[in-house]
């Protein structure tokens, strides 16, 4: 009887700690997501300025600007990390075409305002990558715990599920294909 009580006590204490660790991981992931969200918003705010700047020089590149505007709207409307990831990939592609257009206009490339916008966008993208890595590491830790035994018992009891990773194709491709260094 005594041993049964001790065993039950140990299991209950373990269950409480396992439950609390799930709560902790979920809150860490949510905090990390809030950082990504702020950086993405900053990026969305910079894009209209960039488009307006380039428009002044490349008036006939209408489809490029329409693509960026549509991709930005889709990215703002996306809700889940998976949707956001897909929308961000589209937006990055659309932005590349804007910069490709800008290449053809030396006056635009030399404009201090345009340079500042480019710098800010690049800085924001670096922050997004950093926030994304932090978020994904927390989500991976949570998802591993959800799948592992015996913590999966607590996960199924309290309905703790997987969280979505925030994947960006470019970043994943870069990780898969690291830069070659030749001597």
């Amino acid at each position, binding site marked *: 009887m005594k041993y049964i009580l001790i065993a039950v006590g140990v299991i209950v204490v373990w269950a409480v700690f396992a439950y609390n660790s799930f709560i902790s991981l979920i809150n860490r992931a949510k905090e990390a997501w809030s950082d990504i969200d702020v950086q993405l918003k900053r990026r969305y705010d910079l894009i209209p*300025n960039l488009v307006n700047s380039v428009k002044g020089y490349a008036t006939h590149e209408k489809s490029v600007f329409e693509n960026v505007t549509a991709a930005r709207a889709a990215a703002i409307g996306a809700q889940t990390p998976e949707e956001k990831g897909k929308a961000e990939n589209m937006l990055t592609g659309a932005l590349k075409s804007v910069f490709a257009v800008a290449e053809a206009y030396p006056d635009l490339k030399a404009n201090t305002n345009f340079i500042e916008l480019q710098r800010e966008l690049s800085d924001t993208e670096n922050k997004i990558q950093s926030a994304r890595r932090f978020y994904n590491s927390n989500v991976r830790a949570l998802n591993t715990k959800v799948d592992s035994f015996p913590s999966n018992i607590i996960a199924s009891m309290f309905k703790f599920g997987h969280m979505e990773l925030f994947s960006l194709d470019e970043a994943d491709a870069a990780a898969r294909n690291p830069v070659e260094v030749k001597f």
Partner: protein
Amino acid sequence: MRNKIILIFVIVLVVLAAWSAVSHSRIVAADALATKQWLAADSAYAARFARMADALSSTDAAGFAAAVNRYVSSQGMDTKALAAADVEAEYAQAVFAKDGDLTVPSSLSAARLEAVQATDAAVSAARGSYNEAVRVYNTSISGFPGSVVARMFGYGPRTYLRATDGF
């Protein structure tokens, strides 16, 4: 045998009561820290918006002024966070080029614009500290026995300082 069961029951109750007391103290401390960090974030935003207003003083920036008013008059941290994002967007619209005019309006002082940029790090740091404090607080009221204690004493979850709704 019966006495033993009663003893075990009493010990469990005492442990739970002590655990709850510790949990309550953690919640109170986390709540106080989150409030303190919010005040710091609010103050960082206020300083930044004041510099923005200064930078835009010589130009027509009605949208910016309206966004600042919305920020000042909004109640609660959630709405204030969204209002702060609006102020940033309005400021960007007012400063950067529009309709192909690539030059920053000559009426805007470069030194004042740089003074605004100088607040970037402070705002970012304040927001990060606040969000971290919210995470600690939300964790303390969501776990066990924190969730029970929080319900008893009326503590609710706080929202992260974010830019948009959703997820």
